[in-house]
């Protein structure tokens, strides 16, 4: 199968993730969509890795997964903390840092 198919799938997943980040107001969904975007990137990395026949892209994808895991830990922790303090779970309501 040629590389284009993989890249098209990757681009579609990325766009779904980006659209989710831009439109959804729940921080939980925003995090999910971020995961989608990251994994779209991973897909593209692995596809290129296969195309060139070396392992560097795969190594990079594993590092992205590690970073994503950390990010989700922190993000979910923040959301749980917000929930416990009875803060609204809505990214548009949390704008204390506006200028």
């Amino acid at each position, binding site marked *: 199968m040629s590389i284009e198919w993989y890249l098209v799938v990757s681009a579609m997943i990325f766009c779904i993730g*980006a659209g989710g*980040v*831009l*439109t959804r*107001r729940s921080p939980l969904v*925003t995090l999910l969509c971020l995961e989608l975007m990251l994994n779209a990137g991973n897909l593209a990395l692995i596809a290129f890795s296969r195309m060139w026949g070396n392992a560097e892209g795969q190594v990079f994808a594993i590092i992205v997964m590690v970073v994503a895991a950390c990010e989700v830990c922190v993000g979910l922790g923040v959301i749980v903390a917000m929930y416990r303090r009875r803060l609204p779970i809505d*990214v*548009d309501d*949390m*704008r*204390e*840092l*506006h*200028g």
Partner: protein
Amino acid sequence: MTTAAWLVLAFPLAGTVIIGLGFKLWPGRTAGWIGTLAILASFVCAVITFLELQDRDEHHKQATSTLFDYADTVGVDAKLTILVDPLSVLMMLVVTGVSTLIHLYSVTYMTGDRGFSRYFAYLNFFVFSMLLLVLSGNFVPLIIGWAFVGAASYLLISFWYRRRTATTAGVKAFVINVVGDIGLMLGAYFVLREFGTLDFLGVFEQAGAAPVNTANLVAGMILILVGAFAKSAQMPFHTWLADAMEGPTPVSSLIHAATMVTAGVYLIARMWPLFEVTPAAANVAAIVGAVTLFVAATIALTQTDIKRVIAYSTMSQIGYMIMAVGAGAYAAGMFHFMTHAFFKALLFMAAGSVIGAMAGIQDMDRMGGFRKAMPFTFITMLVGGLALSGIPPFSGFFSKDEILAYTAQRGGWFWILVVAGYAAAFLTAVYTFRMIFRVFGGEPVPEARELEQGHLHHAEVHVNPTDGEVEDTDVGFPGPEHFIAERAFPMKIAMGTLALLATIAGALQIPEVTHAIDSFLHPTFEGSKYYESLAPSESFTFIGMAVGAVIGLSGIFLAWQLWSRHRGVTAGLITRLKPLYALSHNKWYFDEIIDALFVRPAAWVGRFAQQTFERLVVNGALVGGASLIVRAGSAAVRAAQSGLLRSYAALLLLGVGGVALYFLLQS
């Protein structure tokens, strides 16, 4: 040899630092003794330098030493260099010697003043600056010393800083001196441009080969003359000196009579190779000196403040010196500088003693009859007065007549200057003895009677002698005690030494008999056009001396007639010669003219700048405009910081997308 010369500089500086740092710790008169010893040590080192210089042979009487380079780059060689040669050694000896005596006098005179330590710190600082000025072998340390003495003069004129008249007098002296500083600095720039070096010896070496009267060099030398005139109180920069009498009397004696005001004379004598290739500038100096010596003598005739009479006399005598060095009679000018330092310092000290007896009053209208009460002061003032009037065999006689004889040798229009000099010599004798007869002759005033009975007058209420304002005796005003030479041993030593010197110093240079100054200064002025060619013949010299003596004696006779024999006749003269009297009494209206021409326009410009320009342009346009721009810019940036996570994400995507698109289209 230069080691001793550096020590001459080091001692007063150390004195300033020690007295200044511990000014609250020194008990009683300690600070005064520290200051006096520092200057005495400096004088000893000056004598050592002099002896070492005398050991050298005739053609090697010049030594330079550089402590460090400020800047030694292309075209500029600013170095801390001292030049030790006969001229600087003569200045050094007179400055340190007279300063030692005046410090000694001050130790008593300033006792009881709350600013005693501060006074001696300032006074040592002045001596250091003056020595830096006379020793420097490079234009840069010269300018530094020049500005330092101006600063020291300002500090000491305004020493009693709670007196309004004293602070304004200090400001006036400082402003006029800064005008002179700027003149000197620009003049040094012209010299640097012309010769490519700031080193004195380097400049003088090239000056001999320079073409005569080139426009640039004449302009530079006139600018240097502005500096000399401002420092030496010559027309039209002379008005500050009379006001400078607001300072304590020993300060007037040291700074405003014996040393600092003669810096201009020294400068012209030091720059002789430059002035000899710019005769136009040298002639300006001679003419200004002659005008000043005459005008100042006429003003001194009608002043009633005893210190101001001596101040105008100082201007007049410095006019003689400036005329001499401008006309090429360098040795005569320096000789008169030396004798003048002795007798003028003495006159001020005697005046200080009289002021002490009057408990701070300086008005001669209220003095009289002190002869019996203060015999020592009377004798010293008489010696000073005779020397000032040029009566043989006192020192002033020889030096003044030498100046006039040498100037006359130039011939042509220099004769006009000589006639002015003789006329002023007559006036000098008149005003000097007017002062002496009014203070010491006639009926004793109550203060004198009190003193005759052994009780020194003590003022219940102290007033400012200039405007009569009532003062206390705390710091910033003169202290409560007063001292007269009769009762203070240090004052007596200082005045006695100076009286002796004022009497015998003339023996150094009696025409046709001795020529110590001439031969001592010869190495400095070697190669000068005038130094050797100006040699009055024997008969000419003796005729000049006879004329000088007769003029001096007739002046004293006139003063005796007017102020001793026929007391009160002057009131009639004043009404008959009203316009002349008014001209002289108002100092030829110089203060008013300068006020109208410079002070008031400057004050108006200042008010305009403060009230209109600052409010509209500085506050309104510059400050307001700048803050308006910043505020508008920050408001725009702040608006972007919405705090909305999704809009940030959108902007990020847009940005990254834009960059990606750009690179795609590029490739």
